[in-house]
């Protein structure tokens, strides 16, 4: 199949050129522009976090000091973690693609609260600025988890980072609140709950986690800040406080945060599998209810971060079992995606390669997750590179595959242009290979006992570290190629036409790029969101501007 049948022209007026000038962007209330601004911001953060990742891998190339000392290393992995987790992985897909696509997918003209949406962007920028300012002031060496009592005692400048993450948390809550309300109240007539696109379901589930979990993080950050400023003593054993309380409250947010990172990705994959297999999802309902299931069970698993912290045996066992429940819902999704592909008319293009990468990394990362959820095994792997490899497979590997898949799948919709398909496929393969080469050796390292967060290590670990660093270089090279060809495509790519993938998704009903305000009047979508069973029915698109 080729892209040749797509309509070749671009609409004359669309959201990118309806108003001109920087000011019109900075004051926009158009969800698409806010989405694009978020996309630019999270990509910048990804670049920054990625540079630090490469620096860390470079340092670990030799057993002794390579490019930085131990203190610098502690600060570098803190920046890497803080930037990647709080400023890239958590906001990336919901804020960039959720903002852009959610209203288009439910036939709305915008999100429910456009001004709050813009405010959410500025809060994100403010939080990021505060965090990065602290980094420039000399950096922080607590790691991205800010564990007490170290974070309350270290002499580095933790306060601005706590404040920055707190502010970014506000941005997350507002975005989630906006999405929940939008899905509830702004759907076009006929878009019932069981006719919602799967990406919308995923964003909806994610938003519920964001709204309910983020305030707990906000509060615990405030408490750590008070501990530093006023010595309130809630987490200080010397004053009768309990450092474990910090871990409970922190992971009550931060474990569900993993699902904030992965659920939107699952939504992207559900969309893309269906489109590029030219088949209805094997079971729409299973995909929906497993999303709800993950969002719910995700709240009950935080204690698996604390198996070695002195938790009761019963508590550890309960959290172990609850953690494994997530694997059941995830497996339901994976089986559904594979069944969707089975006997489908598969179109191997760039987003689909990322789909395959996502499924593999999610499966591998998920299975290693079940392994570390076993309390006895976790005692062996705790705080080793095994855990580092596990969470990178899930949080980074899978989320990033979904992010790149989404970027390539919706690029024609967002910018109205096509990118070189061959280069896209080749780079996707390179990135997947680079990723596996980076993190597979880390499972082996961890299993052999290499602890995380150390700049130096015994010499016999070096071959695996070299392999990992080589993989990271491939990965970095892959991202560079993506940046180059997408940048080129933005300016010189051929016009994509309304629906280059011949998708049945609702977002493809409007022009590419979509006009300002999306639709003149509520659109009537003539079929379900993933209805490939009756391909003869090509809907009227007269309701799109």
């Amino acid at each position: 199949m080729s892209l040749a049948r797509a309509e070749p022209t671009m609409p004359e007026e669309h959201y990118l050129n309806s108003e001109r000038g920087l000011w019109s962007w900075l004051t926009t209330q158009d969800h698409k522009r806010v989405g694009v601004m978020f996309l630019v911001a999270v990509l910048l953060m990804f670049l920054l976090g990625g540079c630090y990742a490469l620096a860390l891998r470079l340092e670990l190339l030799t057993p002794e000091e390579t490019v930085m000392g131990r203190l610098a290393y502690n600060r570098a992995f803190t920046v890497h973690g803080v930037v990647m987790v709080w400023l890239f992985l958590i906001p990336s897909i919901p804020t960039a693609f959720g903002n852009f696509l959610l209203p288009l997918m439910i036939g709305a003209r915008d999100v429910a609260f456009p001004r709050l949406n813009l405010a959410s962007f500025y809060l994100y920028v403010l939080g990021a600025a505060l965090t990065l300012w602290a980094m420039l002031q000399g950096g922080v060496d607590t790691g991205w988890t800010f564990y007490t009592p170290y974070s309350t005692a270290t002499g580095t400048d933790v306060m601005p980072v706590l404040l920055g993450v707190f502010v970014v948390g506000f941005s997350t809550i507002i975005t989630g609140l906006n999405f929940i309300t939008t899905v509830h109240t702004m759907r076009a007539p006929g878009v019932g709950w069981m006719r919602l696109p799967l990406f919308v379901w995923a964003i909806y589930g994610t938003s519920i986690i964001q709204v309910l979990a983020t305030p707990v993080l906000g509060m615990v950050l405030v408490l750590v800040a008070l501990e530093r400023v006023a010595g309130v003593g809630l987490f200080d054993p010397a004053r009768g406080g309990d450092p474990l309380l910090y871990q409970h409250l922190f992971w009550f947010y931060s474990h569900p945060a993993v699902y904030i990172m992965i659920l939107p990705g699952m939504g992207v994959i559900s969309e893309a599998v269906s489109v590029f297999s030219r088949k209805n999802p094997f079971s729409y309902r299973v995909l929906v209810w497993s999303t709800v299931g993950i969002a719910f069970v995700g709240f009950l698993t935080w204690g698996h971060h604390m198996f070695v912290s002195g938790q009761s045996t019963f508590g550890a066992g309960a959290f172990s079992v609850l953690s494994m429940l997530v694997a059941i819902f995830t497996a339901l999704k994976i089986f559904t995606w594979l069944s969707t592909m089975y006997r489908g008319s598969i179109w191997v293009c760039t987003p689909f390669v990322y789909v395959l990468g996502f499924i593999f990394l999610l499966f591998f990362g998920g299975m290693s997750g079940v392994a570390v959820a076993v309390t006895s095994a976790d005692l062996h792997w705790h705080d080793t590179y095994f855990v580092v490899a596990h969470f990178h497979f899930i949080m980074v590997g899978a989320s990033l595959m979904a992010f790149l898949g989404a970027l390539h799948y919706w690029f024609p919709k967002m910018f109205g242009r096509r990118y070189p398909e061959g280069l896209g496929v080749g780079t996707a393969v390179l990135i997947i290979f680079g990723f596996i080469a980076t993190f597979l050796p880390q499972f082996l390292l961890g299993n052999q006992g290499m602890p995380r967060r150390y700049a130096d290590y015994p010499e016999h670990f070096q071959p695996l570290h070299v392999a990992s660093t080589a993989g990271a270089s491939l990965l970095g090279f892959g991202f560079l190629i993506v940046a180059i060809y997408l940048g080129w495509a933005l300016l010189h790519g051929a016009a994509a036409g309304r629906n280059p993938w011949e998708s049945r998704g609702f977002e493809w009903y409007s022009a590419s790029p979509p006009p300002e305000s999306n639709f003149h009047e509520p659109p009537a979508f003539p079929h379900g969101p993933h209805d490939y069973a009756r391909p003869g029915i090509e809907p009227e698109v007269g309701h799109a501007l």
Partner: protein
Amino acid sequence: MPSDGAARPVVAQARHFGDEAARQGAAHMGMWVFLASEVMLFTALFTSYALYRLAYPQVFHQGPHHMDVTLGTLNTYVLVTSSVLVALAIASIRAGRELAAGGLLAGAAVLGVAFLSLKGLEYAHHARDGALPGAHYAYAKFAIPGASLYFTLYWVMTGVHAVHVTVGVGALSVLAFRTLEGRFSAAYHTPLELGGMYWHLVDLVWLFLWPLLYLV
């Protein structure tokens, strides 16, 4: 969220489909979701309270004896009364009595300030006694292990609540001013209802803090 202008039909530049009722529905829904997230914010503090109450039962049993129950109870009355005034203000604006609604809102805001003042008075007493949180705790009358944690929780919980009261007083004042300006009417008063919902939450949180810290 429609926040300006009096009752008005859906105009051409409206960004959304649907009528004013639909937008009101969205605004209410958004507020409920926000309140849910606020509840979770306080849940982190209530969880900490529960944990330390389990760890230091004796401290939490004796703690309320060192509180000024009179001031705390007075504050409860003040806050509940202000909540009633807000409810009456909403009823008034629904019935089209803008002047009454504005006055009632202003009254509620004044009671909010009264609450903060009483709280400040109480804080001053504690500070004079040396009943300060954590490292600064120097209250000789209550010096058993864990006592500083009780006061730490007291300061943090009531402090976070006081921040919410302050925000609420600001919101009620703006709403009262705008109501008296004639910006709201029986046909359009969504911001008033949202402000009211927020104020009721602030009130409700205090109704949990008061027994936990002063009575039981």
